[in-house]
């Protein structure tokens, strides 16, 4: 009898993915205006392990650059990129739509309105901004879901997507109105909308970790259900799956993670749509692979993009969203072209 095995992440792929991520993290830590050696980085990281005394070989300034500036920024890059890519993969699966991205249900517009209000009321650098963006994002997705679910008579997927369009349009209009009424804040709002990791400190990392953890664990646990959903609502129901409930759980988890990372990093586009597709072209479309690989791949991609954003036009920084699209799009087009013959 044939030995049957489902698609799963083979140990060597785990290894390669972890290696790629580790390499980009190392690059993110060592490259910058002040070049740092791998041994410096190693000494600082080891020095922060509990029970280990600080190494004397690294200067305090270098230690501060590594531990207080670069390391939280790189970690935030991993969490934001990983979450956006994983949430994007989940959305594409749940909605069976290759164009679905983490911002599909009005999350971006909701977060944008929340952030703009926070900046208008609290001024630039308002501590209230991440909370307002988070609340806006979650509220927008909840409203979209309520409208879409209520109006679903035939296809709940299509009505959800369409209600997402309506909610996003409304919230964007509201956001533009608030922004125009407070035009002195334009620059701050614009910078948030373009997305950045530059304000990151450990507090940002700490604030997103719980949400990212809940979202990743939920989506990873339901990765097989995403494969069942690929058959469509009717066939999934015929296989005994509670389609509506599972879809709600997956959407809620993906939205929670997205809202949390958007709240600290702004709207970084492209990652959630391209990383999952890139991995699909390389590894097939099973979500058993796509969910974990998207997290690792998205994290590595964003750290690399942030590295470029930091060093491309010194001493200034480019908005990271510009880099993700500018580097990611041609690369994706290249893969798409070379793989087209094989995948059809």
């Amino acid at each position, binding site marked *: *009898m*044939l*030995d*049957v*095995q*489902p*698609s799963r992440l083979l140990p060597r792929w785990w290894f390669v993915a972890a290696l790629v991520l580790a390499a980009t993290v190392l690059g993110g830590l060592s490259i910058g205006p002040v070049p740092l050696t791998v041994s410096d980085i190693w000494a600082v990281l080891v020095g922060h392990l509990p029970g280990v005394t600080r190494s004397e070989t690294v200067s305090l300034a270098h230690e501060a650059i590594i531990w207080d500036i670069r390391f939280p920024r790189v970690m935030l890059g991993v969490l934001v990129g990983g979450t956006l890519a994983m949430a994007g993969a989940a959305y594409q699966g749940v909605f069976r739509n290759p164009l679905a991205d983490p911002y599909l249900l009005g999350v971006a517009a909701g977060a944008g309105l929340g952030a703009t209000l926070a900046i208008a009321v609290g001024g630039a650098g308002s501590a209230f901004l991440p909370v307002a963006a988070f609340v806006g994002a979650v509220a927008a997705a909840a409203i979209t879901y309520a409208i879409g679910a209520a109006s679903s008579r035939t296809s709940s997927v299509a009505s959800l997507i369409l209600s997402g369009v309506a909610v996003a349009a409304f919230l964007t209009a509201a956001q533009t109105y608030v922004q125009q009424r407070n035009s002195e804040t334009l620059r701050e709002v614009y910078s948030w909308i373009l997305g950045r990791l530059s304000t990151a400190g450990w507090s940002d990392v700490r604030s997103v970790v719980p949400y990212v953890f809940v979202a990743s664990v939920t989506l990873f*646990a*339901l990765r*097989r*259900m995403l*494969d*069942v959903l*690929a*058959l*469509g609502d*009717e*066939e999934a*129901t*015929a*296989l*005994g*799956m*509670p389609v509506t409930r*599972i879809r709600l759980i997956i959407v809620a988890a993906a939205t929670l993670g997205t809202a949390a990372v958007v709240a600290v990093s702004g709207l970084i586009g492209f990652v959630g749509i391209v990383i999952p597709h890139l991995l*699909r072209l390389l590894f*097939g*479309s*099973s979500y*058993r692979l796509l969910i974990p690989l998207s997290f690792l791949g998205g994290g590595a991609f964003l750290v690399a993009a942030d590295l470029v954003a930091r060093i491309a036009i010194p001493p200034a920084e480019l908005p990271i969203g510009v880099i993700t699209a500018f580097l990611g799009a041609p690369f994706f087009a290249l893969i798409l072209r070379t793989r087209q013959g094989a*995948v*059809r």
Partner: protein
Amino acid sequence: MIVVRNLSATYDEHVVYSDVSMTVMAGEWVVIIGPNGAGKSTLLRSIAGLTDMPGSVKVDGRSIDEISGRERAQKVAFVPQAPALPSGMTVTDYVLLGRTPYLSLLGTETKKDLRVASHMLGLLAVEDLAKRDLATLSGGEAQRVVLARALAQEPQVLLLDEPTSALDLGRQQETMQVIDDLRVDRQLTVITTMHDLTLAGQFADRLLLLNGGGILAEGTPDEVLTSETISKHYGANVRVIRDSDGGVIVVPIRARQSGRNIGRAL
């Protein structure tokens, strides 16, 4: 055994059919025939428990409304006319989806699930395709793979909507024979809808003719397939030939008269 009582279907207050009842025994093959729009597919989906239309369906004495979706899926497998074949998914992963009713929501396949999937791949002679992408399969290969997935549910009842509509003549006969072998082998209750009346007659134990809101004829192919019945319900010109070994062959005949008239008018 499956017992269907008083199923009705309406779309926007238009009654498609009402009070349809049938009993199909274990190991029996019933084919639902009828013209387009008679509600064959809807009826099959209702029997599968996929609509919330009125009526009752009992499998082995238990109403499918009273058992969980998972339990229902362990008893009844349903294959739509055009099943989704997600590109990029391997045949193995696809067949394993048939084990969904046996897994918890967060679970992954056990050794037993893998064994069942492997067995079904063998049964339908598609082991060689195990690692292939669904998008690369031919129509006949895909039909076998879809059947392997349905059988991986280890159902008592197999519901197939137009299982041969996308296949060439050879693949049609092959698919019907595969289903028939499985039916005999596993004492499966099989209900299918079909347009090809000759093929239906060759394999069905019983035919049900669904039209005009209900079942208008029921019986063996020999009883149901008469030229009067077919021309009345399908609006078709046919000649029904009964061959020496009891088979019924339905041959469409071109309506010469009206054809000439149109030709002359042109």
